[in-house]
């Protein structure tokens, strides 16, 4: 406590960028709700997302079915919550693969430069030149039966070059700074420089890109599901719910509205949080 007082007397709080603002926390709350819902879907008092109640077909929102039912009499609220499982699992899983491989490679290439960088970057750019979505669709069309793990793997691998490029560029901007050379001259090993000097400096960019990356992958999963290339029905996902509701849109507009709304809000929140974090943690551009 005394140390804390001492500190405030002499040194002001680190000068950060813009404040986060209340909207940021609302977004965080919404995301947390989504994630918790996805994790605890089977413990929560939800109706069975696969149970077909033929006496309630295409009914609008009511007390019994909060968001109504679909053309097979299934509870939409329950299906939206269960559907978030697929979307979030694909988004997070694919980004774990993308960052797990792309980020270390990007940092290493930017720091080492030379032939290693040249070869790796060329290979990555060749992959980037090829439209990823086409590749993903092609692979998933033939790799049957489709399972969640396969979808995560394919999208994850496809995202590696993108992550690599962003991280490499971010690292390169830092790696030529004098303080990296200074650290070297003070005898720091390469590993130390990578982990202790470079990583904290690119972390803000990496985290923002991670969040926006998750949003992109969730959209991609939605697109794949819409094409019938994601998890097989009747397992709900936001994308295949929108796809299924397409045919009955004129009779039951609720059906397309709620999964779309869930998807939109999720993506908006991710993007907004990513953007806020980036401008907030921009410590490197603090004005003196």
């Amino acid at each position, binding site marked *: 406590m005394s140390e804390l007082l001492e500190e405030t007397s002499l040194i002001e709080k680190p000068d950060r960028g813009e404040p986060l603002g209340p909207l940021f926390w609302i977004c965080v709350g919404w995301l947390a709700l989504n994630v918790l819902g996805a994790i605890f879907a089977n413990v929560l008092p939800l109706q069975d997302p696969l149970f077909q109640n033929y006496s309630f077909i295409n009914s609008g929102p009511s007390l019994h079915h909060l968001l109504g039912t679909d053309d097979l009499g299934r509870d939409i609220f329950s299906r939206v919550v269960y559907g978030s499982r697929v979307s979030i699992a694909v988004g997070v899983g694919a980004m774990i693969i993308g960052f797990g491989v792309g980020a270390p490679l990007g940092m290493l290439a930017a720091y080492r430069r*030379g032939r290693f960088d040249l070869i790796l970057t060329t290979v990555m750019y060749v992959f980037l030149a090829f439209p990823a979505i086409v590749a993903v669709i092609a692979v998933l069309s033939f790799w049957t039966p489709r399972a969640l793990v396969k979808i995560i793997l394919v999208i994850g691998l496809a995202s590696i070059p993108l992550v690599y490029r962003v991280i490499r560029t971010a690292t390169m901007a830092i790696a030529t700074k*004098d303080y990296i050379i*200074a650290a070297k*001259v*003070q*005898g720091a090993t390469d590993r130390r420089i990578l982990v202790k000097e470079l990583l904290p*400096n690119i972390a803000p960019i990496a985290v923002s890109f991670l969040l926006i990356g998750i949003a992109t992958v969730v959209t991609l999963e939605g697109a794949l599901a819409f094409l019938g290339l994601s998890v097989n029905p009747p397992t709900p996902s936001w994308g295949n719910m929108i796809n299924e509701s397409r045919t009955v849109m004129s009779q039951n507009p609720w059906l397309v509205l709620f999964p779309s709304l869930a998807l939109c809000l999720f993506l908006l929140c991710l993007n907004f949080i990513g953007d806020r974090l980036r401008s907030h943690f921009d410590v490197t551009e*603090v004005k*003196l």
Partner: protein
Amino acid sequence: MSDALLVVKDLAATFHTAAGPLPAVGGVSFELEKNETLGIVGESGSGKTVLARTIMGLQPRTNVTITGSVLLNGVQTVGASEDEMRRLWSTEVSMVFQDPMTSLNPVMRIGKQIDETLRVRLGMSREAARARAIELLEMVGIPSPTERYRAYPGQLSGGMRQRVVIATALACTPQLLMADEPTTGLDVTIQAQILNLLDTLKEQLHMSVVLITHDLGVVATRTSRLIVMYAGRIVEIGATHDVFTNYRMPYTRALLESSPKVANPAHTRLIAIPGRPPNLLRLTQGCAFAPRCAYASDRCHQERPELERAAEPGHSFACWNPLEPQGGRP
């Protein structure tokens, strides 16, 4: 020879650019004794920084060819691997960079940046390193170092940051400190403070200093010897007093004349050196300064002059048409 800390012989650094080879530094030879302060002056782009970084073994290995020899305390640094250099860095030789705004990691507390070196290089314990870091901060004149230890670089002024940079450079008490324009990014009033600090620390720690600058006022009183560089080559070298008073090379004179003097009446026009520094990609056979030189003869355009001894001991110059020595006395 025996007590020379740094022996540079015929050092050259050539960058391979898309437009052809660029000889940033060529034919540089000099020695540095222990406890000596050597100044290197020259215009922007005269190869001062490249020379410093080459001596430090900090050049990238891919697009530059380095020839010649640099003996640092008897160890060859030209062609040394990074691992070999790591043994010399921080304990034998260290460096203070130009811009204190970019030479500290903005997301690391300053104390930690000093700590790291001590713990990695000297194997100190966490507590010992912390105590030593605070001691170092105090040594470089940072008020209330215990509190500042936890500050981020962004919370300190430019002068304070440069003091921290110096503290990190001196953490392992190197024998040689390369100061590459250590005051360029600072206010004039702070410049003097930092330079005086470097002077004091040099005496205190018995180290040698290479002070690189484009400001003649900086080197005049603080260095014992002076190197004048032009287009990557040494054009005049000697005791600081000799270079200032008995300069033989017209370029040195032009440099001296172009710095403002307090004794001049107000609104005196500064004498500028006509023309621009040469494009290193298109150097001619002759003296690089010839196109801008008032004394240039045909020979200057044809043939490059080598360093030649002057009357005073240790004073050499590279010029076909040297100026008459002024015979100035201290």
